């Protein structure tokens, strides 16, 4: 029953979505170049399966690397913002300003600054685009921590960092994981922006470009779906971590 729900429900949701998509395309009679339908995609996967595999791997590891850095850096920035009002007042506008700049326009700048460092560029972009939600959530978790909780450790003379590690972080883990879910998707976007805008022939982005060059619309859609699947995979990895570390937080909704 529980397993059925855990696996069955997402699978059913995805199938319903695919069915709906197929139906929409069919009903509107959209040609491939407007929107390919799910039934067009298996062809693309069969023809290029090895490219999909290598591309996915290349995209995935860069994304995960960027995300990993984002988690560490985001947590640090969030801590600084959470503990100090001044840091919060000063950093927030800068971070928001930076994040409001479309990253697509920054890719060429990065590519010129670190010419040829494709891996570095890609990981950097995945990091830059995905650390903000984490920083925000950690910062908020800290600045809204109820004094009752903080005082448990403060009364023992614990350092701010200890309070963060033992109380604030665990207490905000649910929100932290929520931010991580957002960041996962952003990191993928970052990786792909670089792969598409400053192409270096690697990853799913390269496959997308090649589909574009050839006006192979089903291939392009197939790449997008592959990206979505990678995103979902990484999401389940996050969920697994969440179950382990923040399972306590979910409350029955009687």
């Amino acid at each position, binding site marked *: 029953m529980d397993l059925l729900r855990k696996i069955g429900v997402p699978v059913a949701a995805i199938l319903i979505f695919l069915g709906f998509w197929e139906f929409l395309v069919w009903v509107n009679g959209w040609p491939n*170049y407007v929107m390919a339908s799910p039934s067009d995609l298996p062809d693309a996967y069969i023809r*290029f399966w090895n490219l999909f595999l290598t591309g996915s791997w290349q995209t995935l590891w860069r994304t995960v690397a960027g995300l990993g850095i984002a988690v560490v850096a985001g947590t640090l920035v969030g801590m600084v913002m959470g503990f100090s009002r001044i840091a919060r007042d000063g950093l927030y506008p800068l971070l928001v300003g930076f994040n409001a700049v479309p990253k697509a326009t920054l890719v060429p700048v990065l590519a*010129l600054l670190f010419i040829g460092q494709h891996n570095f560029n890609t990981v950097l972009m995945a990091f830059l685009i995905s650390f903000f939600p984490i920083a925000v959530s950690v910062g908020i978790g800290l600045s809204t921590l109820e004094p009752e909780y903080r005082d448990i450790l403060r009364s023992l003379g614990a350092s701010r960092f200890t309070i963060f590690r033992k109380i604030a972080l665990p207490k905000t883990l649910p929100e932290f994981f929520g931010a991580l879910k957002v960041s996962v998707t952003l990191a993928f976007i970052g990786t792909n922006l670089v792969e598409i805008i400053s192409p270096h022939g690697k990853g799913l982005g390269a496959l997308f470009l*090649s589909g574009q060059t050839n006006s192979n619309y089903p291939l392009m859609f197939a790449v997008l779906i592959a990206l979505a699947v990678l995103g979902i995979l990484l999401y389940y990895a996050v969920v697994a971590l969440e179950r382990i570390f923040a399972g306590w937080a979910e409350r029955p909704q009687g």
Partner: protein
Amino acid sequence: SAQTSMPFALDWKFEGPAAPYFLAVDSGLFSDAGLEVEISEGKGSLDAIPKVATGAFPVGFADINSLMRFLDQNPGAPVTAIMMIYDKPPFAVVGRKSLGVETAKDLEGKVLGAPPPDGAWAQFPIFAAENGLDMEQITVEPVGFPTREPMLAEGQVAAVTGFSFSSTLNLKRLGVPEDDLSVILMADNGVDLYGNAIIVNTDFAAENAEAVTGFLTAIAAGWRAAIVDPDAAIEALIERNPAADADLEKERLQMAIDDNVLTDFVAENGLGGIDADRMASAIEQTATVYEFTSEPDAALYFDDSYLPAADSRMLK
């Protein structure tokens, strides 16, 4: 022997017209000249030019008209063109006969789809002036690159601006019959502009004059070989862009050769040189659509001193 490293920045993706360079790599033309050449794809001329200007790539491939503007905005940037490849630029208006567009004049009263950052669209005012078009009567619909051809295929616009070999083939792919397409090359309709050229970082060239000349020699040889055996060229390309459709890219390459590279002038004088009068006229035409911040000077944009002897640049 110590090879000179010369990374080469293309302006665009690995498509048919890039095949000659890969052929040159694969048939050892560069390594024979003591050069180690790695080719990178790009996102348009505006991506390739700064790459060369910063010196990250000693050589690149870019539109000379974009280069003019770049040099005007960034005076003293160490970059210049040294070998013209597209003697005729691929700037074109592609229309559909079934929608009433066959000649330039037919555009009046129609909807023209144009992506604002498009190179061909940038030259459209020259084209319009040379052909006496009344811009008032043309409805210009801004479109994005990815939607340009689909919109023409859907009949949402009657014509689009674009590169001849890109738009035409994309349209064929979208199922528009070839004989319904009318490709109006701007170069055939009064526009004197040049097209894409090999550009070089001038600091690099000054120190490695011999290597640069050797590079250009190999480029010319690459084109020559590709014209003789397009299939081999495409094979070299497919290796780098595995998902590419060989037939399509071959057609694209052939269009580039026929329309843009192997012009009468090139057949006669060899690949790479320019005609000073035409260049002057091109600058003059550019000045009608672009406000130079300083006096334009042809010498800044093109330097023929690295070109190898004419006979090694003959394509036939």
